[in-house]
């Protein structure tokens, strides 16, 4: 188990900069998720920690030791690949044993470790099979077992659940957490699925275009997004961001169909703003003191089963989307409706820089 520090790491391929002076610290035993859209550099960062890529500048430290130029084999890291990368010509047992043998673990110790790990990830009945005789979920478990058996100080996972079906994915997610709690391995997990990230991570690093947008616990990132990108990326359905202009000096936001109080502590607001709120924080009806009001015409009502999704068209053409319980009959397409949002759940972002404006 070890702490990982990424210190000012940049990665360039020719003229393209895929990582831009990135800093990140992962605590010992922590489950850190790297989250971002494809091409944001999260997999490149993971591969650099593994030693499969070399940073153009900057340092990588594992357990306090600079490993920037250390070959992968001597870094004491294990990796679960997106494609699992099981050796097709070896049985499950041989797959797990290979890394142990190469590290000089004794035969008896290898046998006992395989037994222990096979029980942990529930693959004991398949040990003598070849990977092609296993299902996707089973291969996934073998890939995990191969890493756990080596007892590396750091385990790296590159979208390990992306190739299995949705139902199994939720099962494997809980499994991954259970195994992490049991082994306590420092884990870095790459995904583009925000729901997976929220469910797994002790902390999440949200990345975009090769830099970090925000680092925080799932709750922090959900409740206090640092900028408009994170606000849009986290949560399903996504946060409503309504673009509006702000009259300088006014102590409230007033736009077509919108009234929102502005805390005095925010200081001078920029003229171009995003007003953000999550559908689940809004309630129908008129606003009380200190709440924001949003009014518009109900555009579409979609039935989703347990919930309905309402699309509200504001007077200046912007749209707000929110979900309500099934059977709420107050929403009629084409009629005017109003929403009230408590001030504590309002988010303001500078539309130009994307940065959140907080008191």
């Amino acid at each position: 188990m070890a702490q990982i520090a990424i210190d000012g790491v940049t990665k360039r391929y020719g003229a393209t900069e895929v990582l831009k002076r990135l800093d990140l610290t992962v605590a010992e035993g922590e489950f850190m998720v790297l989250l971002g859209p494809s091409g944001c550099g999260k997999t490149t960062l993971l591969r650099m920690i593994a030693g499969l890529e070399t940073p153009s500048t900057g340092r990588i430290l594992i357990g306090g030791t600079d490993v920037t130029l250390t070959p992968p084999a001597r870094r004491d890291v294990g990796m679960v690949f997106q494609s699992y990368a099981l050796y097709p010509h070896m049985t499950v047992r041989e797959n797990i044993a290979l890394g142990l043998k190469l590290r000089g673990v004794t035969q008896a110790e290898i046998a006992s470790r395989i037994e222990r790990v096979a029980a942990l990830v529930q693959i004991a009945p398949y040990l003598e099979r070849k990977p092609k005789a296993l299902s996707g979920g089973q291969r996934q478990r073998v890939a995990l077992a191969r890493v756990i058996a080596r007892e590396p100080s750091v385990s790296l996972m590159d979208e390990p659940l992306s190739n299995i079906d949705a139902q199994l994915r939720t099962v494997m997610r809980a499994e991954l957490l259970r195994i992490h709690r049991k082994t306590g391995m420092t884990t870095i997990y790459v995904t583009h699925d925000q729901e997976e990230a929220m469910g797994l991570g002790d902390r999440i690093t949200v990345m975009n275009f090769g830099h970090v947008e925000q680092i925080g616990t799932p709750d922090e990132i959900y409740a206090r997004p640092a900028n408009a990108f994170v606000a849009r990326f986290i949560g399903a359905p996504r946060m409503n961001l309504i673009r509006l202009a702000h009259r300088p000096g006014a102590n409230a936001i007033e736009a077509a169909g919108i009234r929102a109080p502005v805390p005095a502590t925010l200081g001078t607001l920029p003229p171009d703003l995003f007003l953000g709120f999550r559908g689940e924080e809004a309630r129908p009806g008129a606003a009380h003191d200190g709440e924001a009001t949003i009014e518009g015409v109900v555009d579409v009502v979609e039935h989703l089963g347990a919930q309905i999704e309402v699309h509200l068209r504001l007077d200046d053409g912007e749209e707000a989307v929110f979900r309500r319980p099934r059977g709420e009959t107050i929403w009629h397409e084409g009629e005017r409706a109003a929403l009230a949002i408590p001030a504590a759940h309002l988010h303001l972002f500078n539309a130009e820089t994307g940065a959140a404006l907080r008191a």
Partner: protein
Amino acid sequence: MTRHKLLSLGHGLFLAFIALIIIFPFYWMIASSLKTENQIFQLPPVWLFKPHFASYAAAIVNDHILRALLNSLIVTVGAVALGVAVGAPAAYGLARYTFRGSSQIQFWYVTNWMLIPVVVLIPFYLLAANLRLIDNPITLILIYQTFVVPLVVWLLVDQFRAVPIALEEAALLDGMSKFGIFLRITLPLTVPGITVAAILAGIFAWNDLLYAFILSPGTDARTAPTVMMSYLGGYIIPWGRVMASAVMITGPVVIGGIAIHKYIARGLTLGAVK
């Protein structure tokens, strides 16, 4: 009869015709090798006859065809073994690493395959003669590399590229050396491709006449195709022995071809992994 049935009948007849054209020479070769010299030239041809093995006995006793087949085997196996031992690592290097000139080198291998043999034959003959290596199987094994290595490299580059890089990276993290990965991960996964390349290269080496005829003409050193050539020298051609020798020479080629035909049919793009 429906139009569809007529069409498939037409297909069938056409295929049967093509098959006949291909199979008939083999039939004629085997049949003639089992006939007497008189029966071979009878018109109309004798379709039913008692098999007669005198031609085989003569080819073995008079023409030392078994000795020649053994020479061919030694030269072919030697050339293929050396070619794979040299060509497989070369192909792996081209498949996995990009370096200055790597694509030119790959192209150079392919163009070598188009080399006209006579171009290298004369200088090579002079070299071999000066080194007193005429009639030595090593000479043929070496000169066959001019076509075995390009063929092996050409076929194996794609084979190695088909092995997912993640497998090699996983092995790297498991603590394996780069050469260990090549030997214990990549090679075992490309055995079908290597087998195809070896058999194809072997067929070319086995069939070679030009190099063998010039560089290894001695009675004890000559290969099987050279023996075939020797039949054409006299006033009469001993067709029975020609056909018997031909059966013994083409037999291994046909067996090798059948062994790999399904891979060849797939355009040599066999998925070593998956």
